[in-house]
């Protein structure tokens, strides 16, 4: 049941385009965020801890792998509803949304898409119920934007594959029961499932983050790590496979950061209407209104972009470059909006009593991971000109 007054931002009556189920799913996640995330998140963020107690509740809610078919533990929901889940979770915190994104888009999706029937039957229901937690290891210390040059290798040996190398910046790494690891086998990128506790595999946590603090980030280290033959994702092949996963996750981010922007706008709007300076609410000054007008305009544009992207995805017409456009644009405007909101709150803007500085810090990670702004620019640039400018 709802305990909050937050009613979302809907300047263009986008709700009218949503079905009853889509609205119900959005509202139930919104209530979840209000009741389970917002009351505790500042403390977890300060302590640099993930709020583990909410994981079973998120599983019960059904937000892990919800677009997958019911027989694999999914809910068979469409991509509009999925996007709205991401939006509402990220209004709570990017770290919490990241947890859900990784579990759904970067672990369940590759197992569903590239896994054998046995792998799917074994892992997907357990990941949906959060009995098992997953992580996705692509980035390496020396290869971020350019993962194709990865060093991590898999070698076919008697009894399985021997993995050597290291991954860095891996969300959920330390707490994961299973890592989807991308490594080169005979020069070709393939996906492997590496289970926690496998000899030669360690996952130390990354310390000292000033962003996405309520999320576990880790290094994955493989030293002659032997995994069974059955742990290769048989249908994975080439860099295209992890990039397909990134397309899924970027899609969720495009929606998620709109939730972040909404949280900042909502806070700034409220604050500016009640903060009196020079004898009137600061919302009454033209410069403040310019900021609020920018915020509501950009949020509305981003919402429409997401809605159309969801339609394309549901119709099987979505191109990865269209996801790049939305991820790039929405992260950019969310970052600007978070910064504006922080300024509008004056000194209060630096306090943990308001969510804006946490969001402002978080967006730095979200804008960086899953392809930086620059990488998405180059993807779009190549798409419209036909001339790649990556190298």
């Amino acid at each position, binding site marked *: *049941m*709802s305990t909050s007054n937050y*009613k979302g931002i809907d300047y263009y009556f986008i709700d009218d385009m949503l079905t009853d*189920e889509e609205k*119900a799913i959005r509202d*139930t996640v919104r209530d979840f965020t209000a009741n389970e995330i917002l009351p505790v998140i500042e403390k977890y963020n300060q302590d640099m801890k993930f709020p583990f107690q909410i994981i079973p509740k998120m599983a019960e809610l*059904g937000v892990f792998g919800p677009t997958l078919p019911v027989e694999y533990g999914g*809910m068979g929901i469409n991509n509009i509803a999925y996007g709205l889940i991401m939006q509402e979770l990220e209004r709570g915190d990017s770290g919490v949304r990241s947890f859900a994104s990784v579990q759904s888009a970067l672990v369940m999706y590759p197992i569903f898409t590239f896994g054998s029937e046995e792998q799917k039957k074994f892992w997907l229901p357990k990941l949906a119920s959060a009995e098992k937690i997953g992580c996705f290891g692509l980035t390496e210390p020396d290869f971020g934007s350019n993962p194709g040059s990865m060093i991590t290798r898999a070698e076919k040996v008697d009894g399985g594959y021997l993995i050597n190398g290291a991954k860095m910046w891996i969300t959920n790494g330390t707490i994961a029961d299973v890592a989807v690891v991308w490594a080169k086998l005979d020069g070709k990128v393939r996906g492997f499932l590496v289970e926690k506790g496998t000899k030669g595999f360690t996952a130390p946590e990354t310390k000292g983050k000033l962003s996405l603090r309520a999320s576990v980030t880790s290094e994955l280290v493989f030293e002659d790590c032997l995994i069974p033959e059955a742990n290769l994702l048989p249908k994975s092949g080439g860099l295209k496979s992890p990039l397909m996963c990134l397309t899924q996750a970027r899609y969720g981010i495009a929606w998620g950061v709109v939730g972040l922007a909404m949280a900042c706008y909502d806070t700034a709007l409220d604050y500016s209407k009640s903060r009196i300076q020079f004898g009137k609410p600061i919302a009454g000054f033209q410069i403040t209104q310019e900021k609020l007008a920018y915020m509501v305009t950009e949020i509305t544009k981003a919402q429409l972009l997401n809605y159309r992207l969801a339609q394309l995805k549901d119709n099987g017409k979505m191109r990865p470059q269209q996801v790049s456009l939305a991820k790039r644009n929405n992260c950019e405007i969310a970052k600007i909006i978070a910064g504006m909101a922080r300024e509008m709150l004056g000194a209060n803007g630096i306090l943990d009593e308001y969510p804006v500085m946490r969001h402002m810090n978080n967006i730095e990670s979200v804008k960086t991971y899953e392809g930086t702004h620059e990488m998405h620019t180059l993807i779009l640039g190549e798409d419209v000109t036909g001339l790649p400018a990556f190298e």
Partner: protein
Amino acid sequence: MKLVVCVSLVPDSTTKIKIADSQTAIDTAGVAFIINPYDEYAVEEAVQLKEKNGGEVIAVSFGTDKSRDAIKKAFQMGADKGILIKSPVPDFDSYTVARNLADVIKELSPDIVFFGKQSIDFDGLVVPNMVAEILNMPSVNVVTRLDINGGIVTAEREIEGGKEIVTASMPVIIGAQKGLNTPRYPNLKSIMASKSKPIEERPQTYTGNKSEVFEMSLPSAKGKGKILEGGAASVPELVKLLREEAKVI
């Protein structure tokens, strides 16, 4: 167990209410409607009983077509079937509501009928007891705890300054108060399942309001606060004002 939950649709509690030009109703333009919050406790209690003892939960609403949304919310929380008693126009008083609900409840002959203790729109607090009276059933309202043993319910209810424990035999009408339980978030599974749950539509069987609204107005604006600036010396004055003007001590 056959369990009926009566649910209604009310303006969202955060709505800024405006009076319509008629001066006898609220202006519903732009108002978001939600299931009456007390009805959520009623639905939750019924669904929990079903989960424990088996049976079915039927959500019944009297109202215009819009009231389907209240039934749908009950579906999402776990109710199995719905009945909408459809009124062509939103012009009915508590008595009309009670009579129409009573007709359907009589036919369903459930073991327990749950209501929210009141609807937060008109705050009449009368429908559950009216229905009980019409059907000659026992009823307990403002219930914060419910135990069932055989055909007997034991209900804890709030009374001014305390609690009362009441027993009644089933079939019985229960009005749910906050605290009876914690209403669940509908999860994705039940939201998706709710799509295929049927809502049966029935015509209004009784018309004939017993009351009429003559005029509706907003509460008068709160007066300005008063600040006594004399420090400790103002305490006697403060006590006097609290006693005589604010009448709180």
